[in-house]
């Protein structure tokens, strides 16, 4: 076995894979260490030095595909990619396709990664810090399941304009200072504190909206959970409302769509003349 460690960096893996491929080292003879266990397995296979004779032509599109799939955190994160690279460079393009056993796993990983990037775009919640403070104006805490933060957070540069914002996670973090995006592979503890200990004095507006746009007569928690996995609830302000809204809707027997807070307020029928008054 040849055991390698790429420190979960795609570029490092790419150098290693290119070298392995040039020596035509079969995927079954290589493994990449999971984080922190690199020293457990010593390589017991003679390791050739320098570049080998085999010259593979690797299309750019394949590299992009592999880089994308490399953001997936999971077993055989890197060795699966080498196997795909091996097969395609030996003329078997089905290794990238969903109909193939390996290809379908590759495609599944890519899908998970792009789903997780989409989850970042959707479920990050920025909270505004007091205006006078230096540093980020908006901070968010997010817990992505895959290594998508750096690439996917570029989305917020277009969205937030010149505002300064920060997204901290348990692993890495990003800070946009109004001009450039700074990515830290290990999120500085001060960033994590900023994101986790921020006051939100006006958070109730959004919670009010969320409660009232929900139609209790159409209760369908299963569909909701399919789109909004439970693991995100704890970092969403509306997350703690969800169980009670479901319970209330069940107790209210789902008769009509109105929220209970509305039906208890005084109503107003409108006569056809003299309606021009604001609420």
């Amino acid at each position, binding site marked *: 076995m040849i055991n390698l460690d790429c420190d979960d960096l795609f570029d490092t893996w790419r150098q290693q894979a290119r070298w392995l491929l040039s020596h035509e080292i079969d995927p079954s003879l290589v493994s990449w260490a999971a984080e922190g266990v690199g020293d457990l397995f010593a390589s017991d296979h003679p390791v050739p030095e320098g570049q080998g004779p085999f010259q593979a032509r690797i299309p750019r599109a394949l590299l992009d595909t592999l880089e994308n799939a490399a953001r997936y955190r999971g077993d055989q994160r890197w060795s699966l990619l080498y196997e795909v690279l091996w097969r395609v460079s030996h003329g078997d393009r089905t290794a990238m396709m969903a109909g193939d056993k390996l290809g379908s796993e590759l495609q599944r990983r890519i899908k998970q990664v792009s789903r997780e990037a989409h989850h970042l775009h959707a479920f990050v919640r920025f909270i505004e810090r007091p205006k006078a403070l230096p540093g980020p104006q908006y901070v968010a805490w997010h817990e992505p399941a895959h290594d998508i933060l750096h690439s996917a957070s570029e989305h917020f540069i277009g969205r937030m*304009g010149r505002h300064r914002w920060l997204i901290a996670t348990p692993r890495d973090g990003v800070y946009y200072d109004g001009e450039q995006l700074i990515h830290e592979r290990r999120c500085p503890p001060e960033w994590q504190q900023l994101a986790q200990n921020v006051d939100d004095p006006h958070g109730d507006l959004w919670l009010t909206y969320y409660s009232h746009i929900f139609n209790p007569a159409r209760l369908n928690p299963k569909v909701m959970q399919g789109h909004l996995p439970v693991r995100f609830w704890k970092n969403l302000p509306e997350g703690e409302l969800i169980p009670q809204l479901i319970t209330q809707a069940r107790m209210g027997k789902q008769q*009509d769509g109105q929220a209970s807070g509305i039906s208890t307020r005084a109503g107003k029928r409108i006569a056809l003349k003299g309606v021009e008054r604001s*609420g």
Partner: protein
Amino acid sequence: MQIIDKLSILADAAKYDASCASSGAPKRSSEGKSGLGSTDGMGICHSYTPDGRCVSLLKILLTNFCLYDCQYCVNRRSSDVPRARFTPEEVVTLTLDFYRRNCVSGLFLSSGIIRSADYTMEQLVRVAKLLRKEHEFRGYIHLKTIPDADPALIAEAGRYADRLSVNIELPTDASLQTLAPEKNIGSIKQAMQTIYTGEQTVLNEPRAPKFAPAGQSTQLIVGADDTDDSTILHGAQALYGNFRLRRVYYSAFSPIPDSPKSVPLAAPPLMREHRLYQADFLLRRYGYSADELLKGPGNLALDIDPKLAWALQNREVFPLDLNRAEASLIARIPGIGLRTTERLVELRRQRRIRYEDVARMRCVLAKAKPFIITSDYHPQQAEVTSHLLYQQLRDRPAPQQMGLWG
């Protein structure tokens, strides 16, 4: 009244509109610019409420004061609901606040009719204009269009909004006359025509200011009257054809408090709404015609999806050889979607398709099985009658527990 109280009333009043899409806008970015917001054509669902619906936009009414008396509507003038009215500035503040929080991708603004159609439309346009001009907001804006409003106002709305929509509300003229006496189909279609003309005018003019680049949509309410699915689908097909609508939304009538006698007390099954959406998708994306899905009068089956229903009625087309059949026909196999069709075509360029390849592609194999041939598989069920297949493949809904009080 505090803004938070208004928000609770005017969000509650807006929830019956099904659309919350933020897709189809052109690429806009605020990178390095003052102002806020971006769009890239893809919508984002920022949250989901426990009814399973996506929250993509801040969807509110400017006011739920309304002169009209549409029987199915919670905000009709004879309804005893609390009323409120936002100022345009308040809507702007809320939109920007939610947007910065990343809770929404924009605004979907509608309104009850106050004073006149023109006045109401003016107020809606004013909000969009404030957002775009004063605040350089580049997020998504969807404005409801008031049917009788001056075409000049609709044209102005089209310059600020990504999407405009005019609700057709009820599927037939007769129902509109009975249940929404102040509305009429003529002015609704006139407004759609105005929007369509606006879109066409800038179509091949890259320098012209954009006009509702995410197109127009409409909504109709299902189950408030006794119109059948066939009429609804043929109506939708005509709207897609005549006005190039992007979407028709079907909203199952939701019972409202203090319901008038003219509308039902109970909601139609949500499954009916779901089947209409499936059929609508077949019209828009798969190239089915309304006649293929429902020839005569009647409703879509609730226990099988419309694609399976079509396949069972057209058995002579099947089984299809996945290694030979045209892509457009493969997409008509129950349980195989457009994405899987693409993947099958991609794969068969490399090698013959086997049964296990199909199994790996995340299609609904149980549904597809009787209708496909691969290099190593021929369906035993090919000779089974459609009626038997129907019995095997129909959905059996889990038994519903009765409510405690009957």
